[in-house]
C-alpha cells in the first residue's frame, strides 16, 4: 500500500480485512437475491449504493418479491436500520471537529462493523487523528460491498433456477437472528414476533411483519422489566452492537 497514506488509514484497511470473510458472501447474496426477485441489475446495485445496509436491503428485496405494499417495504427498512441511531450517538463525539461535509460522508459510511472497530480503537487513545482509521475501515467495507453486489448480480443472472439461490435470503436472516437471541427477554421477543407474523401472514400489505415486530419489541421490554436479575434494560443495550 502507498506509504504516503496516513498510517491510521492503513491500520483501518488492514483491520477490515478479517471482516470481509463475512461481508463478501452477504454482498453476493444481496446481488443474487435482487436479480432473483425481479429487480434489474442497475436497481440491485443502486440499492447497495443508496441504502448500503445489508439486512435492510435483503428485507426490501424479499418484500418487493412478495409484492408487499411499498410503504411496508420502506418502514421495514427504517425499522431494521434504527439500531444505527445508537451507533450515531455513540461515535458522534469523535467526529465533532470535522466539517459538516466530512461528517455527512462519515455518516453515509456508518455500518455495524465500522462502528465497532472504530469505537474500540478510539476509546483506547485520545490523541488520534480521528477520521482516518474509521474511514480506512468504512471505505474498505463500502468498496467490497459494492463489488460483491455486482459479482452477485452477474452470477445470479447466470445460475439456473433449480439451484434455489433465493433461499439464501431467509438463511442470512437466520444467521443474523441466532446471535441476536442471547438471553430470555430476547428469546421471548423472537418467539412472539415469529408467532404474530405467522398468524398475520394473510393480512393485507404484509402488516403481519410490522405487527410481529411491534408486539415482539413490547414483549421484550416487558420481559426485561418482569424477569428477576435481568436488571435495567439500558444495561443490556450497552454491550449490544
Amino acid at each position, binding site marked *: 500500500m502507498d506509504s504516503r497514506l496516513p498510517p491510521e488509514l492503513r491500520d483501518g484497511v488492514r483491520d477490515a480485512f478479517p471482516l470481509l470473510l463475512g461481508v463478501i458472501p452477504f454482498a453476493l447474496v444481496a446481488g443474487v437475491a435482487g436479480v432473483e426477485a425481479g429487480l434489474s441489475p442497475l436497481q440491485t446495485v443502486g440499492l447497495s449504493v443508496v441504502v448500503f445496509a445489508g439486512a435492510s436491503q435483503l428485507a426490501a428485496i*424479499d418484500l418487493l418479491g412478495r409484492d408487499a405494499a*411499498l410503504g411496508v417495504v420502506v418502514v421495514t427498512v427504517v425499522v431494521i436500520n434504527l439500531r444505527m441511531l445508537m451507533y450515531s450517538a455513540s461515535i458522534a463525539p469523535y467526529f465533532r471537529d470535522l466539517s459538516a461535509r466530512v461528517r455527512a460522508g462519515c455518516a453515509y459510511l456508518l455500518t455495524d462493523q465500522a462502528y465497532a472497530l472504530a469505537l474500540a480503537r478510539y476509546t483506547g487513545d485520545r490523541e488520534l487523528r480521528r477520521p482516518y482509521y474509521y474511514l480506512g475501515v468504512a471505505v474498505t467495507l463500502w468498496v467490497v460491498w459494492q463489488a460483491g453486489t455486482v459479482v452477485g448480480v452477474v452470477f445470479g443472472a447466470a445460475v439456473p433456477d433449480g439451484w434455489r439461490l433465493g433461499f439464501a435470503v*431467509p438463511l442470512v436472516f437466520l444467521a443474523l437472528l441466532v446471535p441476536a437471541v442471547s438471553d430470555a427477554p430476547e428469546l421471548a421477543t423472537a418467539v412472539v414476533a415469529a408467532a404474530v407474523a405467522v398468524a398475520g401472514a394473510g393480512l393485507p400489505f404484509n402488516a403481519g*411483519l410490522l405487527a*410481529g415486530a411491534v408486539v415482539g419489541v413490547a414483549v421484550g421490554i416487558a420481559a426485561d422489566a418482569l424477569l428477576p436479575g435481568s436488571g435495567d434494560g*439500558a444495561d443490556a443495550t450497552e454491550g449490544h452492537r
Partner: protein
Amino acid sequence: MTTGYGPLSVWAVIVVGGLATFAIRLSFIHLFGRVDEVPSPLRRALAYVPAAVLAALVAPDFAPATATPAALLTPEIVGGAAAVAVAWRTEDVLWTVAAGMVGLHLARFLL
C-alpha cells in the same frame, strides 16, 4: 418470486429507504452538542428490534402449511433447521448459508 412492481416504484423504495437510512446515520453525528444521548426508553426498545424484526421476517418463510409431521419435513424446513444449528455453533454467515443450502438440496433429493 419476482416483483410485480414497475421501475418507478422500485426506485422510489430505493431512494426513500436510502434517504431515511442516511438520516438515521447522520442524526446524532449532526446534532452532537444539542442532543448527545439516545433517550433511555428508545434505547431500551432498540435493544429488541433486531430479534423482533428478523424473527418476524423469517418465520412466514418456514411456517409449515399444516400441523402434520409430513408438512414439517419440507426441504425448506430441513434447510432452515440445519442453518439454525450451524448459526448457533459458528455465528458465521457464510457457514450458515452453506449449511442451509446443503440441507435444502439434500432434503429435496432424499424426501
